[in-house]
């Protein structure tokens, strides 16, 4: 291997690589131009309309007085003539587009979220410290929302924690009454009145007895 030979090979290699690069670059450029040309020459897309063939009218057989069978076109009797027959056009894409997008009831959603947060807070409070107040708060919360079953559960819990207070008994009796268990509501009120002297309970008992 001589120095000249090595240099010559290096020179040839560089020339070859340059040639290859130009070839590839030219090919890419040509492809781009060809693609651009094809894209620019392309016609705009028109909607495809499918024209249905005109329906051929069937012939019906009409019986006359002479008991002869005469064939007459159905058109005259059955199908009323239309002034202008419009060819139905079926589009592949639905033409109808709603002008306004439907909105969700924001107020209700906000209210539901607020109540959910409140319930969560009350439950957390009860879990943190199981007191009569927190149980009563939950019973009251569910009673206000007309969730009577839950209200009864939480009223019972509150009564266990402090059976001497009348608020939760009132919730209990009212919930039972609202659920249709009138007798249960009255009997429970009668039992409680023996322990707790409350005007409110007595008034309620009288009212329920009057509702019988």
């Amino acid at each position: 291997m001589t120095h000249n030979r090595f240099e010559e090979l290096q020179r040839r290699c560089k020339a070859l690589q340059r040639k290859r690069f130009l070839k590839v670059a030219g090919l890419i450029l040509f492809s781009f131009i060809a693609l651009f040309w094809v894209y620019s020459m392309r016609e705009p897309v028109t909607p495809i309309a499918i024209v249905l063939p005109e329906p051929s009218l069937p012939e019906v057989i009409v019986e006359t007085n002479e008991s002869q069978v005469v064939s007459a076109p159905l058109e005259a009797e059955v199908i009323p003539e239309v002034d202008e027959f419009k060819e139905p056009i079926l589009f592949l894409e639905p033409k109808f587009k709603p002008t306004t997008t439907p909105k969700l009831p924001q107020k209700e959603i906000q209210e539901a979220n607020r109540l959910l947060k409140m319930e969560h807070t009350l439950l957390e409070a009860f879990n943190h410290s199981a007191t009569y107040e927190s149980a009563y708060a939950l019973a009251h919360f569910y009673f206000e929302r007309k969730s009577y079953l839950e209200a009864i559960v939480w009223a019972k819990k509150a009564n266990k924690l402090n059976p001497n207070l009348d608020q939760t008994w009132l919730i209990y009796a009212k919930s039972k009454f609202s659920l249709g268990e009138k007798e249960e509501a009255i009997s429970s009120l009668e039992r409680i009145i023996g322990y707790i002297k409350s005007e409110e309970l007595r008034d309620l008992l009288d009212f329920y007895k009057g509702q019988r």
Partner: protein
Amino acid sequence: MKDFEIAKTLFKDSIDTSFYFDSVSAEAARKKLTDILNAKKNSLVFVLGDPGVGKTHMLTMLHHSPLFSSHSIFMQHPCFEWQELFLKLYTLKGLPFDETENEDIHCELLGELYSDETCIVFVDEAQLLCEKQFEMIAKLCSLHSFQCVLALHKDDVKKVSNHSSFKNFSQEHIFYGTLNEQELHRYLQAQLMAHSQGEIALMFSARNTKKIARYAKGNFRTVKKFFYNLFKLLDYAQKNNLTKQTTLSNCLLVMTALDIGLIRDA
């Protein structure tokens, strides 16, 4: 410091029977040929393949192998006279060759000599044999004591196998394929590692060998030539402090391919 001088010598274009590379095609061909020769069914076996795939190497290796060395002769070049062939056959049996006798008498004598043991005649470059040589091989095959293995180029098989002298003999064809990319990588690593040139072997990535395989088209001879020239260039660059060219690069591979004429830039 990498010794490219030693690495270069490992890829000289010479037949080294001590080294055998077990490529898929080589293994398949070797196994098939060994089976045929052991079965002693076919009088004529043709080993076909492109020039430089390793046909000669395989014949040389089998001729020197303990399996056949005691009862085989190898005609390495196709330009031989009948005397040369017969001399080898007599020498194998440890007998002197009498040049005064004619060809037919020798044929009879050889038939008697090899009646107990079949002799294998390996002939390389069989596509270059002349009419007289074809007839001579046919004569030996007709004695039923000789099996002839002819290595020839793939393109010339029809000309040789359809020769009028060979029509009466049972023939077998064995194809010898090329190396694939993975085999080439394995060959390079094995050859360099076997000669303590691990540092050089690590220079070659699978991507490099893939490129070399593409240049050489899987031809064993071309691959060896490529590596020989590549190490020659690396050796020159190292000795002349051309640091940029002492590492394996795409440019260096292109330079090698240009040097041995695998790429035409004109």
